[in-house]
């Protein structure tokens, strides 16, 4: 107790850390691996241990000018060089430039006869030789445990491994030792007894036929670290870990407003549209026009010269472009201009975490101001509610931290009460727009209303929602007091099927809309605004 108090007063020396250069890992570890100390990376077969080791060295050599030694006990240098070439790591070049030294240690018990006392001085000499050759600051031993199968005298082995760790520490080598995961224990052969400064566990789990890689820091002596399981992925850029929960609730709140792309919808939102950086949920039954709202939003963003990212889980980009052209939205020019990126991904392609990971990467690379996810409900299939909620929370935090305005669409099951089915995520959402089927007077119409919109006095009207070849439109609300929300029959008649070629009638209806809008503002919206303002502030 007193010790820690003293430490606080005298500004304790921070534990030195060596950045790994691996995306996200440095954030999770608060700066990297402990400098001059061994770190154990353990996990089952195929979970990316060797990859992590290699990337640690490659990034160290290329980004931090810290040459490294890779001592492989399982794979030959040729194999490793080939394996990581797909990630863009040129080990041969690094070796030639004396930034990296690959040594292959072959241990085969059947070739070795033991007779009497021995030690592993040969290993030390090789390591020392390799370190001297490149002036190494980093060492990776992959996997040291292979020794245990190579020698029968475990007593000697344990003593020598303990000596090796001390030896590496004395030489101030930042070391990564990979290890197989044992049954029930973290590591087979109990190596963690010797290396207890930092232990990272990698995991490769399959749930619902979808695999996700995860990373967890079990132990990091002398340092705070994230304790969660973080998903990570290995792709053509190497490893990236996603420190998703690290954002927290301290993002900025912008007062800037941006258009939804539908003027009538903006009208419902104080005539200004969404807040920048807010999260919008558009939920509705099948065919209620969710994608159209998303597309309008994207188009509006592109017109403002803002980058937009559209993730579609249902339609291919070509199909979406075609369909949107039918309501007068042409997205292709924006794609060509590089302002809009489309990604059609099947939800079943990856697990939730992986989707999140990919989204992170896309956002980091493309840096959009606006993101549309259409629809998020498809991601839910197979996974538990809690998982999707936590994923969405992290996603929203991430987007908000980057001041990205997001529109999620969500498919609600008809028959089920929409507000109920959305309970899990609605609390995370800033603006919630609900689309609804309304069956009135022998017609099936789309209705739209704003369930909630944080920080603004939104309208309470249920408006008829039309998809015309001029884009989405909202029919002005009827005069207050009417029981049928869509009693404006003239507007109702002016449905999409009639809209074409009926310009005259349209103009008339627009005039009427204007009148109706004024009336509605006078009669209904004002008291409502006051009421809403009271609620919201």
């Amino acid at each position, binding site marked *: 107790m007193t010790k820690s108090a003293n430490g606080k007063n005298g500004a304790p020396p921070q534990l030195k850390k060596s950045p790994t250069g691996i995306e996200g890992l440095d954030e999770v570890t608060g700066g990297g691996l402990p400098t001059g100390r061994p770190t154990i990376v353990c996990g089952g077969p195929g979970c990316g241990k060797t990859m992590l080791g290699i990337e640690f060295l490659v990034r160290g050599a290329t980004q931090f000018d810290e040459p490294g030694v890779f001592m492989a006990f399982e794979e030959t240098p040729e194999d490793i060089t080939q394996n990581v070439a797909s990630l863009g790591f040129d080990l041969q070049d690094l070796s030639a430039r004396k930034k990296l030294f690959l040594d292959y240690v072959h241990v085969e018990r059947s*070739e070795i006869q033991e007779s*009497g006392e*021995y*030690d592993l001085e*040969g*290993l030390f000499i090789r390591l*020392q030789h390799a370190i001297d050759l490149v002036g190494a600051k980093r060492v990776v031993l992959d996997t040291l445990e292979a020794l245990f199968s190579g020698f029968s005298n475990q007593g000697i082995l344990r003593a020598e491994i303990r000596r090796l760790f001390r030896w590496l520490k004395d030489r101030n080598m930042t070391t990564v030792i990979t290890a197989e995961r044992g049954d029930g224990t973290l590591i087979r052969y109990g190596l963690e007894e010797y290396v207890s400064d930092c232990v990272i566990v990698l995991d490769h789990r399959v749930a619902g036929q979808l695999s996700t890689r995860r990373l967890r820091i079990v132990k990091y002596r002398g340092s705070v670290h994230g304790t969660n399981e973080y998903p990570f992925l290995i792709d053509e850029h190497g490893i990236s870990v996603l420190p998703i929960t690290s954002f927290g609730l301290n993002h900025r709140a912008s007062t800037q407003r941006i258009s939804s792309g539908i003027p009538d919808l903006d009208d419902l939102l104080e005539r200004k549209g969404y807040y920048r950086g807010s999260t919008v949920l558009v939920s509705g039954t099948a065919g209620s026009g969710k994608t159209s709202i998303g597309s309008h939003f994207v188009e509006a963003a592109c017109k403002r010269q803002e980058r937009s990212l559209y993730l579609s889980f249902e339609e291919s980009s070509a199909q979406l472009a075609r369909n949107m052209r039918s309501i007068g939205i042409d997205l292709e020019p924006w794609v060509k201009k590089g302002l809009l990126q489309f990604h059609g991904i099947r939800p079943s392609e990856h697990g939730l975490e992986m989707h999140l990971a990919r989204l992170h990467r896309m956002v980091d690379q493309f840096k959009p101001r606006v993101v549309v996810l259409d629809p998020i409900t498809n991601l839910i299939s197979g996974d538990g509610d809690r998982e999707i909620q936590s994923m969405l929370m992290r996603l929203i935090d991430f987007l908000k931290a980057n001041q990205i305005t997001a529109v999620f669409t969500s498919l609600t099951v008809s028959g089920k009460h929409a507000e109920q089915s959305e309970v899990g995520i609605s609390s995370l959402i800033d603006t919630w727009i609900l689309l609804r089927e309304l069956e009135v007077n022998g017609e099936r119409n789309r209705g739209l209303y704003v369930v909630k919109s944080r920080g603004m006095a939104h309208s309470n009207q249920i408006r008829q929602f039309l998809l015309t070849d001029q884009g989405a439109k909202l029919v002005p609300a009827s005069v207050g007091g009417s029981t049928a929300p869509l009693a404006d029959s003239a507007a109702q008649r002016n449905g999409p099927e009639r809209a074409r070629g009926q310009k005259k009638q349209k103009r008339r209806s627009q005039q009427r809309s204007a009148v109706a809008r004024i009336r509605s503002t006078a009669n209904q919206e004002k008291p409502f605004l006051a009421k809403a303002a009271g609620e919201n502030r």
Partner: protein
Amino acid sequence: MKRKVQARPRRKSQFFQLRLYVAGQTPKSLTALNNLKKICKEHMDDQYRIEIIDLLANPQLARGDQILAIPTLVRNLPPPIRKIIGDLSNTERVLVGLDLRTPDTVAGAL
């Protein structure tokens, strides 16, 4: 080559080329060298040559023969290559390792 099943006092024509890897003059290394000389004298007549490699002086040589343990005795000739690690104090095991005796005849060799 036909493998002949025969009791194996080795044939006289066999020539042994041996390398003993050490790291400085440690007691273990000295013991190993003494044990090796004794075994050679008793079992190989004069058909052998011992090369001593000090890895402290030539660390790069450890790679070629995949040396980890010290001391390590490598039999380069006759093929195949054999390795025996330790101070060679267990003569029976050295003989097995060098193919001078089949394991069956050595009690508790495996």
